[in-house]
């Protein structure tokens, strides 16, 4: 358990806040794909922790970034925290995305909505390992595509919006990039229908594909068995066996 201090609260839109947390002590080692269970104090209707994926870790500045999408009272409370306030986290939790062993492997990171969050830190890791990073980010509208400049610092950014206000019009799986290029490793996080469509594309093109699931959780540490997903090994906890799963392990009707 860790108490961090809110260093900056960047309100990105009426739906998204970027919390930049820090500590006097060195942050623990955190891998891309891992998440935090964030305690929320003072929420009127919720009392469980919120599972929030790690958006980015800057070890030089000793900063942990969490991207908060306001979904209900719990996330609203988090998104409106004031600089200097303390936040209690269980971190790092869960497994992580795997890196291709082949340095020439072509990688694609596909995110939709708030599912883009863990891809930034993953992209930074892959770039550090020498991969050319391609992001394909989808949203309803331009205003929902947040912090594109951060992704652009790491790799090539392709985008789709449902209303055509930015990038190509349509869903991520309709982007022309997918017809023009092939990829060996595809990582995805976002709404389940989107991840399933990405998984279908990956299977069709023989790409390795990992998805990050966002099942509803209580404990985050494998005790309550609430967040299970059905796999080839039966029901397993997303919080401890995941959140990252290879699509071949999931019992998805793709």
């Amino acid at each position: 358990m860790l108490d961090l201090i809110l260093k900056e609260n960047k309100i990105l839109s009426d739906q998204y806040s970027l919390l930049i947390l820090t500590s006097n002590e060195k942050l623990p080692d955190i891998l891309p794909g891992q998440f935090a269970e964030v305690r929320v104090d003072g929420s009127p209707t919720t009392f469980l922790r919120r599972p929030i994926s790690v958006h980015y870790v800057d070890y030089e500045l000793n900063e942990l970034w969490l991207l908060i999408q306001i979904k209900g009272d719990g996330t609203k409370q988090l998104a409106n925290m004031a600089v200097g306030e303390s936040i209690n986290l269980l971190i790092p939790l869960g497994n992580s995305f795997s890196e291709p062993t082949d340095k020439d492997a072509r990688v694609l990171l596909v995110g939709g909505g708030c599912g883009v969050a863990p891809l930034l830190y993953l992209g930074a890791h892959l770039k550090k390992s020498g991969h050319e990073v391609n992001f394909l980010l989808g949203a309803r509208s331009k205003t929902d595509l947040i912090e594109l400049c951060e992704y652009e610092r790491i790799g090539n950014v392709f985008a789709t919006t449902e209303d055509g206000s930015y990038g190509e019009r349509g869903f991520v799986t309709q982007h022309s990039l997918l017809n023009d290029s092939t990829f060996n490793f595809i990582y995805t996080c976002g709404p389940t229908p989107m991840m399933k469509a990405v998984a279908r594309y990956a299977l069709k093109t023989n790409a390795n594909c990992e998805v990050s699931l966002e099942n509803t959780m209580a404990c985050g540490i494998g005790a309550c068995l609430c967040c299970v997903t059905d796999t080839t090994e039966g029901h397993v906890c997303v919080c401890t066996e995941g959140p990252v799963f290879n699509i071949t392990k999931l019992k998805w009707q793709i």
Partner: protein
Amino acid sequence: MANLNINIGKLQLKNPVMTASGTFGYGSEYSDFLDLSRIGGIIVKGTTIRARQGNPYPRMAETPAGMLNAVGLQNKGVDYFISHIYPTVKDIDTNIIVNVSGSTIEEYVETAEKLNALDNIPAIELNISCPNVKEGGMAFGTSCLSAAQVVKAVRRAYEKEMIVKLSPNVTDISEIALAVEGEGADSVSLINTLLGMAIDAEKRKPVLSTITGGLSGPAVKPIALRMVWQVARAVKIPVIGLGGIMNAADAIEFLLAGATAIQIGTANFIDPTVTIKVIDGINEYLDRHNFQSVTDIIGALDI
């Protein structure tokens, strides 16, 4: 420092704080956060004769001051417990108690028999109150006759401390408590979760895959406290109180109502170290009120 030792029948506890089944895994999930040996007792996940996959996702719905769960006794079965889990928990310096469930009386008996042979499992908690399984579970705990039958059968096969966990989803919980006491239960624990439901109005769908589930958390505490008080006055055997205990003050209320020990459940999900805080808080309360022993406040409600 007051004396926190208590006895529940044959069971000796270093303090009255235990963890509720299904909220603390097998203990190891929490060992990064606290010293497990400080807890009075750890009641591990509901165990059945054969492995169970539990219910489909979604299994959890958060509600104001509570949560509904519909896990449905997912576990790998008693043989797996004996071969894989028991060796890892048997040397923890606390009482490791196994929660036992089944679909038939024979399944309860067979599971209890297997656990009776384990030296370092001093007790079982007979779960006749799980609301999330189609057969057995709560069905046994909601009538005096079936509750008595299952307790009687297990009593013949199990020699050590038998705690019977009661369902609040009944008209008169004292009647059920008396029925199981009459068949040889050494103690009762209450309450299991209250049957509840959540609906997603936008989708016009139930939130849980099972439609209904068990409510726990602070929302149920006043009901749990009332039932503990009623049962403690009705039976002679020790009562273990649980239901929405979030802190030491809550735990003390249950002790005052007549519980000899308490269990902490849902609160573990919010603060994995809550058990230790409750133990320390009870101690602080006893010192502040000049009580020598925690037994001084059991049932000490001033009416």
